[in-house]
């Protein structure tokens, strides 16, 4: 097992690596007639340079809301009610629209969820690529085409796509166009919202590889949202697990998979089907609470197997249990620490 430990050391970028994106106490709520839904509650994490952070959790847990909040694109009736989002040290929450536009795409770009509908059907691909460039740079007309064709080349698209309309492309090609579009201005951070979820597995693999290649070449940092744990395991450096609008655990991907700390993370990992052994799907009793009505204490208390009285009274904070590894569970943190004292995670 010591081999894995050394792997961890390689995967763990040093903690003093530059943090390109810091999210601090982010709170997003959707105002509904029957009370405010807290879709992201006190979410804090950071993204290091050249790192891919996976953001996982069940549907409705606030993954996409968090991502959209980072992009400052939360749709009404949702709004950011608190917290800071810093890109390269500068806060972008609450700055005016005209200021914000300077950050968009140059610092923060998006590979959208539904590639099928993410391109305007009545405008040619070249125009949609070009208007991102023109919005931020004064570019000469003759420089435009070579630049776009080079991007196509980077993501493995044929040159003829330049003059085509979105409906003339396959799903995989559309997603590559979206990838090419996301890197057109060399952003610091790319947010990929389930970039492969609408594709079949073969194309998924190819697209995932394209994303990784691009990321390696540009040295860009990424946040990858998804619920395909298998895909996440192969692609990301660290995983952040969300539950009911809160971050419950964040840490290096290998550690999280080998030795999940938070009870909810444990559940997610156990739910990954294995081809080696046949095991019953583990389902917990209890439902997620109504997000309008957050309980006192731990957010996971209704579904947790190890729930104790203290869990229901006082909410846990984020406890550090390793390098770049935090968990939002008092007991899990204690367990992890005692295990470490006893000789490492894999004892």
């Amino acid at each position, binding site marked *: 097992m010591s081999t894995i430990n050394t792997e961890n050391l390689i995967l763990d970028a040093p903690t003093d690596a530059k943090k390109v994106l810091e999210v601090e106490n982010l709170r997003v709520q959707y105002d509904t007639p029957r009370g405010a839904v807290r879709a992201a509650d006190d979410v804090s994490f950071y993204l290091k340079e050249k790192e891919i952070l996976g953001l996982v959790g069940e549907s409705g847990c606030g993954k996409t809301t968090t991502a959209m909040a980072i992009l400052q694109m939360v749709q009404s009736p949702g709004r950011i009610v608190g917290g800071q989002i810093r890109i390269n040290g500068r806060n972008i929450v609450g700055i005016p629209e005209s200021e914000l536009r300077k950050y968009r*795409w140059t610092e923060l770009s998006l590979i959208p969820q539904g590639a099928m509908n993410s391109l305007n059907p009545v405008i040619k691909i070249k125009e949609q690529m070009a208007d991102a460039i023109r919005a931020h740079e004064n570019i000469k007309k003759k420089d435009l085409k070579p630049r776009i064709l080079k991007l196509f080349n980077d993501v493995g698209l044929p040159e003829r796509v330049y003059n085509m309309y979105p409906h003339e492309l396959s799903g995989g090609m559309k997603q590559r166009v*979206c990838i090419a579009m996301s890197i057109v201005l060399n952003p610091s951070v790319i947010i990929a919202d389930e970039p492969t979820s609408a594709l079949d597995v073969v194309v998924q693999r190819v697209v995932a590889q394209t994303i990784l290649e691009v990321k390696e070449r540009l040295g860009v940092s990424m946040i990858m949202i998804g619920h395909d744990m298998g895909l996440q395991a192969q692609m990301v450096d660290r995983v952040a697990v969300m539950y009911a609008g809160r971050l419950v655990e964040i840490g290096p991907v290998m550690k999280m998979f080998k030795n999940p700390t938070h009870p909810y993370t444990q559940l997610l990992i156990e739910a990954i089907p294995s081809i080696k052994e046949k095991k019953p799907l583990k389902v917990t009793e209890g439902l997620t609470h109504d997000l309008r009505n957050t309980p006192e204490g731990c957010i996971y208390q209704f579904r947790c197997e190890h729930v104790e009285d203290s869990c229901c009274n006082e909410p846990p904070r984020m406890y550090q249990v390793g390098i770049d590894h935090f968990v939002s569970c008092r007991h899990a943190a204690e367990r992890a620490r005692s295990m470490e004292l006893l000789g490492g995670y894999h004892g």
Partner: protein
Amino acid sequence: MGGLTWNYILKRFSMFLLTFWLGSSLIFIIPRLAPGDPVSAMVVRIVMREGYMENAQEIIESWKERFGLNDPMAVQYVKYLGNVVQFDFGFSLARFPTDAWDIVLPALPWSIGLLSVASVISFIIGNTIGALMGWDKTPRWLKSILPFSLTFTAIPYFMFGLLLIFILAFKLHWLPASGGYGRGVDPGWNWEFIKSIIRHGTLPLLSIIITSSGGWALGMRGLMITANSEDHFLLAQAKGLSPRRVFLRYGVRNAIMPSLTAFALGLGGLVSGSTLVEFIFAYPGTGYTLFQAIQTQDYTVIEAVCNLMILITSGSVFFIDLLYPLLDPRITFKSNK
């Protein structure tokens, strides 16, 4: 630009022919379903006016013979189709020696002039209002004012026309109340005549624009709200494009398509005129002509106006079909290069 192929044009053209044929056939059938016939109706009218008519029955018979109304339906229909193809409907029945076209054609420029200006302006105003109402970045003050502009939609345009006549013509004497141009003005390319046309056209124009732009606005608002939540619209925002560009190229550009089709369909109405508005303002257009023809049961004039309307409607649909692939590239696919 998109793909216009011969195959596509041919398909649309045969649709155009089919529509035209069906419409013309209906115009043939419907008047003949009504009891009586135009000749008896005319004679009855003369008898009622003059009090007496000699040999009425014989006259009816001989005229029926002359107009071919005694022929079997099938023969009449073929003759009628022949007329339609040549676009010649013969004499006006109410004003007998005059050709039907000589009554309809002079009225045509008035209706087309009035209604094309009115529809283009109300299309632009209505869709602009609607698009702004449906856009989430519209300034709040503007968004709260805009709905008031739609209040007039609830008022029928002929009522609104009467209101305008009352205020602007009778009370304030700013504009003339009726007619196409002033008495004593010499028709022709002179400034006096053009000025007179504009002055006379203003009130009918206003009543149509103010009451009909609301319809466009409501439709556009709905389409724009849908377009606003499209993924590509959100992506365009994330790209940091200027709000104006997002609004025009990713919002309006996509939302306008159905409105454009509706607009083309409405073009047929240009020819038939707006009967009620033209009636109220005694405007010398085809709508007024049609109204008079129906009153006098002048079937050939009705046929002429209706066939013209069908031709223009199906013709403009054909035209917009050809235009559509240029605007929305998904309609046709280019044949393999």
